[in-house]
């Protein structure tokens, strides 16, 4: 089995070093590059898109969101993880819309850190209850919106998963409650992430059309 290729884009040298150290110490992971700012990050991505990209949003020369969009537009396989201090709703939703599929807390215990990367790579990153709640209202809002036909709707199962996440249940528990395997729950979560990206793109297209920026 080939090792998972990882790139870290983080401006804080101590964090960057600590993460790099953790990954290099992991046998099935291969750190293929680190960057301290957006420009270096983009440069790395032009050369090779890894399996997993860890990116901080606050970069000295721009937003990590730009890097996420850049990668999301070029790769379906790269799992993008946002490095954040608190995992607060605004940052996370923005990241997911840009194409990220999970986030890492900077203060995660070392053991958790690698574990979370594995979970992400395997399927989907855990969604916090607040994020799930936001996603629910967002999709409900979309279905009543003007671009209904172009915005994907959540399936009943996906809806149930999100609903249970808002109530604090873990994927394991949700799998039990819905009588499916944990892997299936992860699949639902991944689909939800994908749909959010699509819907945000559709919204952007819709807005652009409204502004007359885009011609069919």
């Amino acid at each position, binding site marked *: 089995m080939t090792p998972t290729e990882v790139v870290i884009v983080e401006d804080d040298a101590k964090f960057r070093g600590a993460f790099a150290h953790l990954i290099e110490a992991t046998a099935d992971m291969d750190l293929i590059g680190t960057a301290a700012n957006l420009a270096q990050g983009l440069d790395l991505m032009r050369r090779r898109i890894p399996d997993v990209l860890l990116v901080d949003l606050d970069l000295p020369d721009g937003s990590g969101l730009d890097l996420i969009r850049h990668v999301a537009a070029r790769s379906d396989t790269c799992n993008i993880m946002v490095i954040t201090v608190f995992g607060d709703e605004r940052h996370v939703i923005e990241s997911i819309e840009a194409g990220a599929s999970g986030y890492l807390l900077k203060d995660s215990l070392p053991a958790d850190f690698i574990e979370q990367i594995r979970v992400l790579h395997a399927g989907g990153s855990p969604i916090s209850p607040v994020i799930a709640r936001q996603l629910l209202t967002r999709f409900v809002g979309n279905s009543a919106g003007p671009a209904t036909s172009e915005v994907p709707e959540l399936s009943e199962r996906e809806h149930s998963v999100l609903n249970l996440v808002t109530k*604090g249940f873990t994927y394991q528990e949700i799998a039990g409650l819905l009588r499916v395997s944990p892997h299936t729950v992860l699949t639902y979560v991944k689909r939800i992430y994908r749909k959010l990206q699509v819907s945000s793109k559709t919204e952007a297209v819709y807005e652009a059309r409204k502004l007359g920026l885009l011609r069919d």
Partner: protein
Amino acid sequence: MLTGAVLVAGCIAPDRPEHRITRAELTFTSTRPVDVIHPDRNRRLTLPDAAVRWQPINLPMRVPRQQAAPGEPATDAHRVWIRLRYVAPPDNVEALALYLPRLMAGFGVEDILIDGERIESTVGRGGGQWNEPLLLPVPEAAQRRGGFEVLVSFWNWREAGFMVAAPYIGPLAELRPLAEQRRFLASDAPRGLCYALAVLGLFALGCWWFRREEKTYLLFALASLVWYVRTLHYFTGVPAQFVSLFFWISLNSLSWLMLLVYLFAMRFQQRPSRHVVLGLGALIVLTGLVTSPLLTLPIAVSTGIAYGSQLLVALGVTGLLTLDALRRRAIETRLMVIALWVNLGFGVHDLLLQRFLLDPEHLFLMPYGALFLFGAFLFAVLRRYLAAISEVESVNSSLEGRLADRTRELAVSYEKLQRVEKERAVIEERQRLMREMHDGLGSSLMSSLVMVEQGRLQSAEVAKVLRECIDDLKPTIDSLEPIGNDLVTLLATLRYRIGRRLEQAGLQLEWAAGDLPPLPWLDAVNALQVLRIIQEALTNVVKHANARVIRIETDQIGAQVRVRISDDGVGFASGAPEGGRGLTNMRRRAEQLGGQIQLVRESDQTQVVLLLPIDRRIEPRAQAR
């Protein structure tokens, strides 16, 4: 236009001149006055005997008042006979008719005979044939004879004067349109006008009834009703016993009308002059009394007085209003003055006609004066009405303007309020954060700093303190997240944060969060309080209880929600002093939220129960129950 047509019709040369008969003979017979005063329709006519002398005359014939016709006897009352002969054209096969446009005499009693046979009598109809034209078919017997003699007979008295139009004899089909046209102009049109005015008057009366302060409508109503009464006699016969009363009312109505006109016109100018109104009123009432049928003045005297007074009132009102219109130039008054002058002209025309000084084929014009007078009235009322409407509109638009102003003011003050509210929220938030920093994060960091500076703290301990600080910060962040007043989501964030930590500490977490209704009061400040309570409870379990399983349940009990945190540890009773302090803190926080903390120890379970109200506004009442 109609008036123009009337004037033309009144003065133009008669149509169908070939059927017009202008030569006749005249004679008189004496009679008893009683036959004149109480005529009997069925009475046999005594025809003039053969010895009577017939005077040749030309028709139309007019004998003005105070004049005697040639051969008129000196007796007071007598019968007038007019005789004419007609020879039908030899080839005539059509039905013949006699058309008499007008016959006016002192009494309205007329008989018409053909070859000695009476074919028409207006006896007993009251008023007689003074305005409506007569169209009579010639009896077939007379027609067959080819020629016949027509006798027109009526009562009169000396010097009363009379007037007979030239009659027409000819084919009925040709004369009928003439007669009908004249009937329309002399009688039907005035009647229609009269009724229309009466309806308008009733309408105005209704307007006034519901808006008593609008005297204009009342004046309009009264004027049109007076006019109605005044015009009645042009087309209505009156029973004999009411003739004198009817005559009196008609005679006086014109003056009342003028007074009403004056008052009406003055509403568009200024206040009417009290002296003028009193003077006119006195004159009118006096005239009314003098000419009253109870006084039985000679008819010539009473009509003289009535017409004289009427003329005075009419000229006075017209003069006053004319002066006023010239001075003030209100369009309503000017139109009314024009209408008055037109009416005055009509009145003079009618007076001359009534005095037999104009051709009998002239029409009475006064009924058409209403068109002008009430046209002017209506114009005035219409303008007043339109003015009222536009006033309402302008009031509305100014109201709208004021409303818009108020709305703007409201928006401004709302904005101000929002700003104040925002500032207040910011201040509260700052105070909250300060409190948090001071109690938790700040004091932890401060004590750690002191210990590090004194070299008493190992790096592992520093890491522990810092991690605690960050853990302490997280609920603050979580409390600010949008959770939509949902307590379950709030608890879920806590689990999301610390679930792994608990598991790593060897605790198994059983999660049984049931659905709860939204708590309207659960804002960021209160959410943090709730998080702190739960965190405290969990910390106590982790630190002191030695538990293996921890269970979190939520449910709703009546108007409260319940959060139960149970563990299988050693219980709080044996807890360290911190546990006691922690419990006090939890109690204090719960009370601030309007809720309470209960501690339950049963069998091997220790349970911390947090009860919170769903709606804090109705909480006191819910407790009272």
